[in-house]
């Protein structure tokens, strides 16, 4: 049920003390993205380094979490090790419902534990566990051990880091349960800096529901739309991996550090290929009947006497682009094997894959040497990449430590910035055109999720700066409502504004329903202000030369259009930040 105030749990790792706070603002910031930005602005210290113990790590859910299907994500907010500014990352699995059933709208972690620690929470528990024995363990092993140590199987979430997070890498993710991640912008590094190996949240409480039949009827209605119609078919059928073939066809799939946008090798890594040859089964986030999580398997002969082992690896479009086409790997099992190593290291798969692609080209071009990397890297060489993942996650020497701070940080030191595929952060897998390059380059999360710019590029829209800018701003505003709820973005067709209003109303949130549009505009600005508080200036963002060389089905990137759109978007962002 929707209440007037948020219930926030604040945990201080330095003092070992916790507090439950009632924070007003449900009507103005809704939850999720809005709440995360609000809390980050309240807690963070923009003048201090990202790894200062006082900096917060926030996990926020939304007003509909658990009450409706696919309201299944959590927003994680922190000061990014990559750029020292506000960052937001989203993940599902059981995280959102676990927080709901633990009875809180957001968890704010401040301070730094003296020694490696596991934070264990629930509706009636807050405890810190000594976890020195887990430090150094990979993310999968950590999950397995904690499952054994803590009770509550299936009804809790375990968020943890691997070696990359311990090493405070700007590419370290937070692994959530199995196969889901707070991937981008280095949330895992923030946990590492806090000596926080894992957070386990037990969903052992329960919540009240509205009286009367209206709520159950609305639930059933939405549930039917999600399961009985074709609206979600794309996601549970081949999953997002179906995009690989389509983008390759369009000449928009990055290959070998974006030296090409299409390659016949696609036949080995299409969505169909993964489904036919490697798909073991599907899984779902808690509260989501769609089940878009695709779990592939690889078997590996480790002894000549037919002795095999097998690995299970969750795959999606983005991981296949990052550890597949971007690295020139064209054999599905190879891709899964590299992905599995990335999972264990606790690296963000997109950042990691793009960084390795840059390192490969840098080595080829003599920008860095074999002595510096300590290893040979060649496009298409899976074995080499498996080793490289460990070197990157483990920050084993000067080169890998620098690269762990971001591809651009490495390019600044060694050169090779022209072919660094960095748009704010390492690129997502859409070489679709100018609108996407600008959107990711400047966008709030520097990701493909802030707006559907990659779809806009594909829509054959004319090169019209005003139209493209209007699209970027409006699409972001619409998405902000969903990310404040916090819905899975795959459900955006089902949860149109009218449906969301009905959902809020039935839970007693009439005022929220009435003020949804105003809230969206306010939250859109609030997030940019949170970003600007850390010193963000969109005018300073540059699009590397490689993106000007890209050839898509539309031809070469148009430098003039790119530049005009960049300036227009930067101006609009500055306005939202209140800088003009």
């Amino acid at each position, binding site marked *: 049920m929707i209440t007037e105030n948020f219930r926030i749990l604040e945990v201080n790792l330095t003092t070992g003390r916790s507090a439950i706070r009632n924070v007003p603002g449900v009507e103005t910031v809704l939850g999720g993205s809005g709440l995360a930005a609000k809390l980050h602005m309240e807690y963070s210290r923009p003048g201090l380094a990202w790894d200062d113990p006082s900096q917060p790590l926030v996990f926020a859910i939304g007003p509909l979490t*658990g*009450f409706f*299907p696919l309201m299944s994500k959590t927003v994680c907010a922190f000061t990014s090790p990559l750029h020292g500014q506000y960052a937001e990352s989203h993940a599902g699995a059981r995280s959102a*419902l676990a927080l*709901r*059933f633990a009875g809180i709208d957001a968890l704010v972690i401040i301070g730094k534990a003296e020694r490696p620690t596991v934070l264990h929470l629930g*509706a*009636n528990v807050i405890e810190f566990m000594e976890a020195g024995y887990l430090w150094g363990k990979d993310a999968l092993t950590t*999950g*397995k051990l904690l*499952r054994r140590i803590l009770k509550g*199987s*299936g*009804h809790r979430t375990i968020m943890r880091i691997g070696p990359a997070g311990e090493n405070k890498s700007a590419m370290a993710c937070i692994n959530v*349960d*199995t*196969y889901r991640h707070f991937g981008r912008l280095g949330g895992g590094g923030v946990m590492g800096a806090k000596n926080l190996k894992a957070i386990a949240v037990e*969903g*052992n*409480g*329960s*919540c*009240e*529901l509205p009286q009367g039949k209206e709520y*159950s009827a609305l*639930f059933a209605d939405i*549930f039917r739309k999600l*399961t009985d119609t074709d609206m979600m078919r794309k996601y549970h059928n081949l999953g997002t991996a179906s995009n690989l073939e389509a983008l390759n066809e369009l000449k928009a799939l990055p290959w070998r550090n974006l030296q090409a946008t299409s390659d016949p090798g696609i036949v080995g890594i299409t969505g169909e290929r993964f489904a036919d040859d490697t798909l073991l*089964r*599907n*899984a*779902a*986030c*808690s*509260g*989501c*009947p*769609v*089940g878009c*999580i695709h*779990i592939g398997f690889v078997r590996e002969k480790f002894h000549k006497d037919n002795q095999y082992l097998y690995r*299970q690896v969750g795959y999606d479009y983005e991981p296949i682009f990052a550890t597949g086409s971007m690295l020139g790997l064209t054999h599905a099992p190879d891709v899964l094997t590299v992905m599995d190593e990335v999972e264990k290291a606790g690296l963000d798969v997109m950042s990691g894959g793009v960084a390795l692609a840059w390192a490969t080209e840098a080595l080829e071009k003599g920008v860095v040497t074999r002595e510096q990397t300590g290893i040979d890297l060649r496009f298409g060489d899976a074995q080499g990449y498996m080793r490289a993942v460990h070197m990157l996650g483990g920050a084993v020497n000067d080169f890998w430590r620098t690269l762990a701070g971001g591809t651009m940080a490495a390019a600044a030191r060694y050169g090779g910035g022209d072919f660094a595929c960095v748009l704010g952060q390492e690129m997502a897998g859409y070489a679709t055109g100018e609108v996407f390059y600008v959107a990711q380059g400047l966008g709030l999360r520097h990701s493909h999720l802030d707006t559907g710019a990659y779809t806009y590029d594909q829509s054959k829209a004319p090169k019209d700066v005003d139209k493209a800018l209007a699209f970027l701003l409006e699409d972001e505003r619409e998405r902000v409502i969903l990310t404040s709820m916090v819905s899975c973005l795959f459900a955006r067709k089902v949860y149109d504004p009218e449906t969301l209003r009905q959902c809020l109303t039935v839970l007693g949130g009439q005022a929220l329903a009435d003020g949804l549009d105003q809230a969206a505009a306010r939250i859109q600005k609030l997030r940019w202000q949170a970003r600007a508080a850390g010193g963000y200036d969109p005018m300073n963002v540059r699009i590397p030369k490689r993106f000007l060389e890209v050839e898509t089905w539309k031809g070469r990137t148009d430098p003039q259009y790119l530049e005009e759109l960049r300036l227009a978007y930067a101006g609009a962002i500055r306005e939202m930040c209140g800088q003009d």
Partner: protein
Amino acid sequence: MKHLVASRMERCIGCHSCSLACARLVHKCLSWENAGIRILSSGGLSTGFTAKLCLVCDPAPCAAACPTGSLKQRKGGGVTQNKKLCIQCGKCAAACPVDAIAQDRQGNPYVCIHCGSCVEFCPHDCLELREAEG
């Protein structure tokens, strides 16, 4: 007499739609645990899922253990529940051999009454309401 059977759990994707439906429709709350059926991962997502629910014992040890008649033997196996008679002693949960009765923090027991409300919310047809034989 119908029985709920989790007959195709190999297909389960762990969405919890079934247990959330039971909580919502039968027990009028939002919960993972206060439900007649509960879905557990059997060792992380990588080993699939199992369902914990009433196996329609006849005689039912939980009913035999209940001192107030809150849980009564149901004809054909399983139990009927009268929440008003419950004193939250927890004897039923302790007596269930397969841990199918959950207790909330107040000690209220939750057990499957084989109504089938969960069945239509399973997207993969893992569950079935089966007519008892004989």
